[in-house]
């Protein structure tokens, strides 16, 4: 093969590569562009709606004016309730899977079930929550029923992040602690958990983001179409931000008139997601710096 032939093959190879790479680059930036369009569209349209009144007043005139205060309060209740349930159980369960359980069919079974639970569609959680908490336990449409349903949905996320954070901690720490005469629980609670804690908290924050935006599980367990008062007990119904956005954008009495309210509600939901993600990223970086300094 002559030199020039060789070079032309090389050139065509290089051309194919640069064409392929350019396409990949463009498609990747298309993905980013999609996100920017969605975020930008909602943030720009929603920003003009946001005001102190919008955040602190009850909905008025068939939800075409006023604010979304009860929906904000409702979502806060649901997030708090579901985390109160999912966080302790999830962390304990993660500790069990990574630190205590022995390899065997039982561990495999639990991991398989946790994976399956994570894959179950959120509407099925809604059906289940309705059948068990609302009807069988007789909680009715209530914060309690909604929080438990959302908590079950968040459980696999909390378990998985706990598991991952524990797995990341080197075995030598555990062996060292045990060699000094500490019991297994002492090792877990005083050595392993404090080191894994930052990552576990990050997982908690991310699951807060997930829970606050879920609609399908609360449709039949807690969410109220319109309820211009605040809940007084855990057996009350509440409005919730995602459900509120759904109803005013699809089935309000005057969809066009309530559009600005919808933009405002979507703005708040996006804002929650942004804050949650930024906070999680910041925490991750902050703690990893701290660990390095030690």
């Amino acid at each position, binding site marked *: 093969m002559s030199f020039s032939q060789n070079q032309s093959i090389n050139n065509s190879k290089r051309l194919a590569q640069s064409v392929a790479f350019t396409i990949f680059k463009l498609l990747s930036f298309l993905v980013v562009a999609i996100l920017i369009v969605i975020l930008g569209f909602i943030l720009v349209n929603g920003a003009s709606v946001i005001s102190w009144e919008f955040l602190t007043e009850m909905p008025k005139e068939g939800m075409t004016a006023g604010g979304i205060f009860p929906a904000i309060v409702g979502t806060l209740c649901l997030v708090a309730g579901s985390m109160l349930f999912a966080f302790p159980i999830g962390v304990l369960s993660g500790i069990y899977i990574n630190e205590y359980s022995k390899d065997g069919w039982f561990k495999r079974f639990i991991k398989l079930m*946790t994976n399956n639970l994570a894959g179950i569609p959120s509407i099925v959680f809604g059906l289940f929550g309705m059948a068990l908490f609302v009807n069988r336990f007789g909680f009715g449409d209530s914060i309690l029923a909604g929080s438990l349903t959302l908590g079950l949905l968040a459980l*696999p996320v909390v378990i998985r992040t706990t598991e991952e954070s524990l797995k990341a901690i080197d075995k030598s720490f555990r062996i060292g602690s045990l060699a000094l005469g500490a019991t297994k629980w002492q090792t877990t609670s005083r050595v392993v958990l404090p080191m894994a804690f930052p990552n576990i908290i990050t997982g908690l924050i991310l699951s807060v983001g997930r829970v606050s935006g879920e609609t399908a599980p609360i449709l039949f367990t807690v969410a109220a179409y319109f309820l211009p008062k605040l809940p007084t007990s855990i057996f009350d119904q509440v409005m919730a931000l995602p459900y509120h956005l759904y109803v005013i954008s699809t089935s309000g009495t005057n969809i066009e008139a309530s559009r600005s309210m919808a933009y405002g509600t979507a703005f708040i939901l996006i804002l929650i997601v942004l804050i949650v993600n930024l906070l999680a990223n910041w925490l991750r970086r902050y703690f990893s710096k701290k660990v390095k300094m030690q």
Partner: protein
Amino acid sequence: MKRYFHNFGERVIEGVLTISGTVTSLTVLLIVFFLFKEGLGIFNQSPVAEGSAIVVNNQNPVKELSAKELKEIFDQNITNWKQVGGQDAPIKLFRIDDITDYYTEEQIGKDFEYLPQRLSEVVAKEPTIVAFFPEQYLAKDFQGHRINLENISVSEFLGGTEWYPTIQPAVQMGVLPLILGTLWVSLGAILIALPLGLATSIYLAEIADKRVRNLLKPVIELLAGIPSVVYGFFGLVVIVPLIQDLFGLPVGETALAGSIILGIMALPTIISVSEDAMRTTPRAMKEASLALGATKWQTIYKVVVPYSMSGISTAAILGIGRAIGETMAVLMVTGNASVIPHTFLAPVRTIPATIAAELGEAPQGGMHYQALFALGCILFLMTLIINLSVDFVSAKRKANR
């Protein structure tokens, strides 16, 4: 003593941890139990609309009908008893309002007090009649045969092409359009998301430098964090009108709109799973390829992609799973018409959207309620198959190493 106490404490803690560990398994089992308990009830119920009676003349040899036949009769698609196994005689339809053709208002009574008796007389008089009226007007000594509709069968439920869960006189509960609608929209979503997602993951794993990667990764995570109802809202106000204008359709709420939104929603899953898979390609393999004179691009599509193929298929399966189960976004943008899909430019209705839209109006314990739980079972089984095949693929991948 202290040691004993310590041991005891450790035992208690281990017990608590074990119990917490079983919560998820317990939940899955409870979900299965409740779904199937409510869902299977549908096969024990007669599909006659609640509180109604369907009667024929005593002489009529037809004693049983299926829900489908009854609907066809009342839609006047079946007009002769011969078609449902009876004699050769035209079918005479009778609805409650038709009573005025036979009797005056006085004969019926001011408060309909004679109505049950009159209904009985009409049915006895007309040998080819089929009458449909509220159960409360069924006289005690009724002169006629009350038709018991056959319970819906599994094949009718799964293979039926009509979903009218509240129609009179007999509800139609064929879920085929809903199953196909779900698969149709998800298929469209994966066709959109897979090329885009794969390109992005190749770019992130192999091409982009670290700075760009650190910029893109959080963006993709953010995409995963946006609530589905916000995607639905965006689809409703942007994508739906766009499709309507672009294709000149009467409505923009179409399968295509659903597929686009679901495709965007499936992107983060596909990107992160397949990127992780590509990152596990051993460095030595890539370097060997480069040392043999292959370009970076040749190395990617001849070494990296084949090596991470099982990871990529996992990503695709997970993406489909995400799309199948998605509720709110689909409910808001697909138009929810329960027809068997044949084009992407027409409305379709998915299983999750049906449950979300109808469960609120279905009385607890009724047939409609149970049918929605049965739909939940189907959805659960679909996602179970997806989860198991993901487990299977990744177990195989581990075994191959």
